[in-house]
Structures are given as structure tokens and as C-alpha cells.
């Protein structure tokens, strides 16, 4: 099966705070970055941690965030980045999301 996002896709990390052995750091939740690598499929570590089989396997992406998008008062170069390994079930297409947001805004007018 082809990965849900191609390299270069703009993706947003789900802003959710479930309990458990969650592998998505807090500081990127709700943030938008670019898929810069597709690592492969792995049994879901968030399930493996509880003795389950972690299947179906999930695709692991490397997502690159601009530091100034993560931290509004970032002191450093505007080019500085953080790259985080994130599983597909935490990611949404950022373009679709922003379109939905615009449609929602229009409906409210």
C-alpha cells in the first residue's frame, strides 16, 4: 500500500492528548510541518507497549518543523529545524485541514 503522504506533503499533527504510551511529543501537537522522509511500516508501538500485536503496521514518517513555527519567540536562525518521527495516525493533510477551516468559516457567515 502506498504511504498516505508523499515526501514534500504539508502535514499537521493531531492536537489530542490521549493517555498511554504515546510516541508523539507534546511540543509538535497541533503544529504543521513537511514530510521529509518515509521510514517504513512498523507495528504500532503505542499498542505494543500493552502487549498487543500492534497490527496493522503503521507508516512512520519523518516530519520537519521550522523552529520558528514551534516556538513563536525562537532565538536562532529562521532556517533552524526539528525533525520528529511521527506515525501516520497522528498526521492529517494540512491543505485539506485549512480548506475545511475556510469552508467552516464561510458557513458561519
Amino acid at each position, binding site marked *: 500500500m502506498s504511504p498516505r503522504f508523499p515526501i514534500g506533503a504539508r502535514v499537521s499533527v493531531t492536537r489530542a492528548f490521549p493517555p498511554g504510551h504515546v*510516541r*508523539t*511529543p507534546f*511540543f509538535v501537537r497541533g503544529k504543521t510541518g513537511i514530510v521529509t522522509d518515509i*521510514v*517504513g511500516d*512498523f507495528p504500532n*508501538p503505542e499498542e505494543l507497549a500493552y502487549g498487543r500485536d500492534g497490527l496493522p503496521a503503521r507508516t*512512520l514518517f519523518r516530519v520537519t518543523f521550522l*523552529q520558528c513555527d*514551534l*516556538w513563536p519567540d*525562537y*532565538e*536562532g*536562525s529562521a*532556517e*533552524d*529545524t*526539528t*525533525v*520528529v*518521527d*511521527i*506515525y501516520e495516525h497522528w498526521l492529517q493533510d494540512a491543505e485539506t485541514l485549512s480548506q475545511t477551516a475556510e469552508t467552516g468559516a464561510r458557513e458561519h457567515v
Partner: protein
Amino acid sequence: MSDMQDNGHHHDHDHAHGHRHPFQPDLEDGDYSYYQVMTEAVIELLVGKKVITAEELRSTIEVIDSKSPVFGARLIARAWVDPAFKARMLEDVISAAGELGIDAGAIPIRAVENTTAVHNVIVCTLCSCYPRSLIGLPPDWYKARAYRSRVVREPRAVLKEFGTQIPVDVEVRVHDSTADLRYMVLPARPSGTGDLDEEALADLVTRDCMIGTALPKSA
């Protein structure tokens, strides 16, 4: 620090000091933590129920303890002298390590290359993921909350505390490994090392420069 300085002066214990020198606390003097109790209980159960033997536990710990930055340094020195090897290493670190007779384990490892445009540094903000098979056990600071939280928040300030200043026109790229990958930095070969052979080059590669908090030693 005052008791450290006391080591320097001559102690005459016949005279009345009026105070007792504090001892360095033994391991057992701290609280016995929840995780220490759990670890010992799990070991006792696994051995008691014959899931593993004490011998297997000991030999596994010995394997873990045998890993050291020397392995990673050998890979990097080879990559510096052999561009084809470097390309294979950037593609697949474990198989490149195998070429040198180094067992890098089963967890995928990525080498991230420092260039004139990018300086890489690694962290695991969630726990302590680390390329142990090639660098050995992580230092305490790598597992500490201070490093894990600050290196993604203010990497340049953290690097500066390690004595590493990255020019502002070089991108600082932090790699946060969260679960299934490990990272090691492939530093740039220091200038002025054209005459050095592979073994001498490996001596320039420190643990910290493979984490990205430092640069290799100069020749």
C-alpha cells in the same frame, strides 16, 4: 564542593574537630525507588520461573556494556576516507557496520551528515532512545530532562554550553527519535587531517560529536 577541597589538606584526627566530615553517600543510602523494586522483582520472577537464566542476564548485560563509541568512530573514520562507504552508510548504517565486522543490532539507525549548511544534533525528548550498539550507553545528561526539553527549545544555547558555536548561517537541525529509529551524527572531517590514516582519524571522533553536541577533535 567544600568536602572535595578538604581532600587537599592534611587530616589529623587526634584533635577535636567538633564536626564530622560528611561521607559520600552509598547507593543504598538513597530511597529505594519504585522502579528499583520493580526491576528486582521482575528479575526474580523471570529467573525463578525459568524464563531466563541468571547466566543469560549476566551475559546480556556484558554485551550491552561492551558497546562503546569506538565502534561509531571506526564507521565515521572509514566514511571520511571512502566516499563509496559513506554513501552506503548513509543508506544503511547497520549493513555498513557489518562490513567492518561491527554488530549494530536490529533497530534501524540513520546517520545524519553535517555539512557546511547543516549541523545535526540528536535527542529523544520522550525517553532515552540512543544508538547504543554503536556509541554505548548514553551519558546521564542525555537522559536528563534539562537536555531533552531544552535542546529542542533552544538548541544553539545548549550547544554553546557544550562549547560548540554554530554560525548563524548554518541550519541547526535537531532530530527527535520517538520510537523505531536511532540516529547518529556523521560529523564533517576536520580540516588539516589530510595526512592522517583511518586509525588516527577515528581517534578524533568523540561520543559527543556523534550526538552532535560537539565537533570532532582537531588534528
